[in-house]
């Protein structure tokens, strides 16, 4: 039981409740405090995790529901938890200045705290149900965070899109996780992985794997679900920096890595992850080069990173997992910093259009310094950690076997694009000639600069001390992903080899892309087919299609014609009865004993007579009274055949029914007279006949089956000794099946409330008319 595993989540819960009552000025600082507590808690656990000791807590485990896992922490969870809480700390500081004076900052802070809580819960959950709940909680909170500027239609649209794609993907994931849990017989993640052989031998294994992959792909914006990520840039910059670079989009990567020990030898897993990852990387690189908005550029380069990570997990060898973890850390550091810097530039100059910016170095020297550090890591230059990550990627890709050459070429383009964007962000924005901007910029306050500078510096520190990174971060997490101890020895210098050559090629291609960007970007933007046939367009068409389908089906089913509803009701009943009877060979005739007929049969003549009279009645009122005759005759039949209780109830119900129908319903304004022509009447008559025949056939079939008296015998025998009552019907109602009765009277009451609610507007309307009279 580890208290430090629970403390961050408790802090998050308390923080979100307390924060909601705080002012816009103080709420983000509380958030920073919560993030700080979380970071220190996880840091306190680090030494145990690195030593390979089990760190777990029986929090959120519900044994009675079969939810056993609780929380646990290994190297993989630790890296994510530290990134989430550490970057979160700077995000809160940044937000408090970036959105200073915004009255909605309280709401943003609480949502960010809840989001951080969900992320931390998701990466420390060992139970698939708990994981799923936190997973969807990140989707929900991201909906509110992306839709922060809810007056803007595009923000609302982007928020809905992110929710539909990632939340919908979460449901797919749930299906996959449940299949895994059923196959393994436990909802514990570590238990599922331990039961690898059983899980993989299950007939649902492939379906479960694909469902999990789809869930992760939606969250981590892999092709073809990549479109929501750039659109989510409608969110305020602190949100984009946090959700869309460092944390939420990596949750899919996290889960892929988490279940990797289960699937790492599966060829389908390797193939899908490798090629979809590569496709995502290339798509991101291409689309990044045709954007001019700083945040959208960064969003697309995030796609390249997410794709690369997915590809690395899909590549089987141990080295690729090591590369993935090193690159993950490198990317989180430089990308969060760059997002925050994009926000600073936007904040200070009033624009985030890359074409309108230049020469900001002299005006914003500290920002420029942080940018240079972050972009050097992004470009993969030594001695930054980005260099380490890139070298490892090339090394891993070269060992990929038959298709290595395709992957290498793809990676050169992806990394080249990143080099070009890194150049764009530092050289173009901060150096060269000064361009006029809407506002005169200067360095922002310390709260906003703290994040980018710290994160960018960490990229340098980690690069200079590769052994530290290997021992503390990469080795424990890679071991967790591989399910076996990973031997990691990281160093900056590998000598003059093929990998170094590839780095040089990458730099050169990046330089070419950067220099040709002013011409390349408009050319790529001119490729209209991307907008016309892209995944975003498919989403729009799909959503519009669903809405159209809803419109049509609603118009078809909810047409508002009461007679139509009745026709549908009766026809569906009749047809489903007939079909079941015929298809199941249920048609049967009972053996009829004419000798048993006596005067009691008159009751049934009464029922038939009532039915006939209802049909022939000239007025609505007459029909109501005649139908009452049917009910009373039926009650007589009950009485004659030894069911006094039912008869009693039937009499009472029938009395009330006739009273309600005769005195109340007839008063209701029935505006439309019976305007059916002969053909309509014939049709309705046909429906009535079919319904009557099908019910009659059913009753005959019921009578033809021998009566099973076990239940009635049991109740008859036990009614007095067990429940001390001689009226078996009543004893069943109030005692043996009392819970059913409780449910039934609840339904009764709800029906009454519904009637009251439906009739209310009419009452109010007539009440407001009163004075004018």
């Amino acid at each position, binding site marked *: 039981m580890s208290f430090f595993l629970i403390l961050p989540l408790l802090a998050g819960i308390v923080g979100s409740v307390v924060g909601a009552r705080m002012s816009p000025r103080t709420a983000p600082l509380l958030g920073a405090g919560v993030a700080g507590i979380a970071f220190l808690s996880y840091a306190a656990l680090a030494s145990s995790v690195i030593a390979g000791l089990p760190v777990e807590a029986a929090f959120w485990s519900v044994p009675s529901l079969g939810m056993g896992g609780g929380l646990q922490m290994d190297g993989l969870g630790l890296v994510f938890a530290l990134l989430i809480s550490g970057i979160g700390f700077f995000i809160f500081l940044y937000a408090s200045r970036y959105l200073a004076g915004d009255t909605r900052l309280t709401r943003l802070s609480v949502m960010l705290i809840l989001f951080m809580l969900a992320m931390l819960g998701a990466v420390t959950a060992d139970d698939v149900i708990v994981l799923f709940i936190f997973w969807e909680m990140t989707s929900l909170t991201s909906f509110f965070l992306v839709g922060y500027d809810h007056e803007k239609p595009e923000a609302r649209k982007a928020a809905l899109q992110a929710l539909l794609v990632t939340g919908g993907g979460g449901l797919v994931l749930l299906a996959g996780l449940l299949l895994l849990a059923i196959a393994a017989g436990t909802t514990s993640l570590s238990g599922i992985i331990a039961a690898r052989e059983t899980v993989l031998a299950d007939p649902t294994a492939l379906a479960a794997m694909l469902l999990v992959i789809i869930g992760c792909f939606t969250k981590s914006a892999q092709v073809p679900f990549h479109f929501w990520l750039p659109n989510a840039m409608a969110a305020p910059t602190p949100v984009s920096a946090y959700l869309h670079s460092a944390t939420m989009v990596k949750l899919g990567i996290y889960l892929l890595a988490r279940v990797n020990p289960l699937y790492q030898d599966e060829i389908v897993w390797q193939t899908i992850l490798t090629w979809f990852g590569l496709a995502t990387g290339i798509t991101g690189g291409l689309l990044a080069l045709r954007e001019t908005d700083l945040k959208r550029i960064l969003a697309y380069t995030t796609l390249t990173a997410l794709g690369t990570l997915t590809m690395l997990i899909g590549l089987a060898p141990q080295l690729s997992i090591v590369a993935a973890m090193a690159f993950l850390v490198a990317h989180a550091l430089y990308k969060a910093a760059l997002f925050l810097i994009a926000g600073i530039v936007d904040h200070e100059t009033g624009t985030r259009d890359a074409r309108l910016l230049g020469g900001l170095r002299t005006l914003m020297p500290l920002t420029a310094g942080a940018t240079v550090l972050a972009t050097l890591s992004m470009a993969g230059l030594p001695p930054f950690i980005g260099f380490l990550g890139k070298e490892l990627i090339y090394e891993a890709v070269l060992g990929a076997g038959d298709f290595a050459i395709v992957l290498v070429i793809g990676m050169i383009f992806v990394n080249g694009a990143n080099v070009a964007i890194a150049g764009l962000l530092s050289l173009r924005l901060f150096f060269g000639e000064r361009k006029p901007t809407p506002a005169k910029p200067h360095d922002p306050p310390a709260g906003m600069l703290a994040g980018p500078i710290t994160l960018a510096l960490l990229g340098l520190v980690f690069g200079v001390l590769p052994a530290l990174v290997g021992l503390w971060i990469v080795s424990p997490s890679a071991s967790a992903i591989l399910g076996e101890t990973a031997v990691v020895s990281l160093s900056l210098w590998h000598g003059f080899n093929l990998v170094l050559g590839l780095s040089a090629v990458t730099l050169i291609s990046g330089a070419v892309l950067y220099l040709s960007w002013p011409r390349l970007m408009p050319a790529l933007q001119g490729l209209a087919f991307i907008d016309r046939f892209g995944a975003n367009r498919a989403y729009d068409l799909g959503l519009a299609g669903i809405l159209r389908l809803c419109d049509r089906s609603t118009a078809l089913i909810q047409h508002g014609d009461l007679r139509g509803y009745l026709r549908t009701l009766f026809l569906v009943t009749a047809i489903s009865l007939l079909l079941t009877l015929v298809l199941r060979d249920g048609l049967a005739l009972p053996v009829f004993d004419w000798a048993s007929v006596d005067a009691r049969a008159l009751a049934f003549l009464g029922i038939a007579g009532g039915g006939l009279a209802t049909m022939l009645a000239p007025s609505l009122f007459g029909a109501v009274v005649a139908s009452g005759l049917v009910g009373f005759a039926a009650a007589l039949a009950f009485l004659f055949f030894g069911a*006094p*209780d039912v*008869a*009693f*109830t039937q009499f*009472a*119900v029938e*009395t*009330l029914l006739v*009273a*309600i129908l005769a*005195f*109340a*319903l007839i*008063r*209701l304004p029935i505006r439309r007279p019976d305007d059916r022509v002969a053909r309509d009447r014939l049709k309705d008559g046909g429906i009535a006949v079919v319904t009557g025949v099908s019910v009659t056939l059913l009753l005959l079939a019921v009578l033809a089956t021998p009566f099973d008296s076990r239940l009635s015998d049991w109740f008859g025998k036990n009614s007095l000794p067990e*429940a*001390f*009552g*001689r*009226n078996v*019907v*009543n*004893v069943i*109602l*109030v*005692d043996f099946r*009392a*819970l059913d*009765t*409780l449910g039934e*009277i*609840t339904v*009764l*009451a709800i*029906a*009454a*409330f519904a*009637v*009251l609610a439906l*009739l209310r507007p*009419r*009452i109010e309307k*007539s009440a407001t008319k009163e004075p004018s009279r």
Partner: protein
Amino acid sequence: MNGVMKSSLILRTMAPLVLWLALPVSIIVLIQGHNNPGGGFVGGLVAAAGVIFYALGRGPEAARVIMRVPPATLCGAGILLAALSGLPALLDPSAAFLTHLWWMTDYGLGTALIFDIGVYLTVVGTATAIFLALIRG
């Protein structure tokens, strides 16, 4: 108002009589349901019939006044009473919710009767709520 008041003199005179006849009968029906035909459901229907007859004779507003409690409240109180009757059983860890307890088994006195009273109240409330709402409109 819309004609509710124009009921016949006979109906108007008989309405309270019928109501005061129906109520005791409904309670007898409720209690005797333990051993003979009857019970909370039928009893509730009989009582509701009395109230409805009263409403036909004297109008829905008069019926509301004589009920003292809004019909919807009766529904809620009935469900609450029925659900509460199942709670004492929970004191015994081996018994399930709605396992009835008995004081005098010969007279049917026990939590089962409380449950049946709950059914009675809900039925009265539902039937009168619907009827009164309809004829008011």
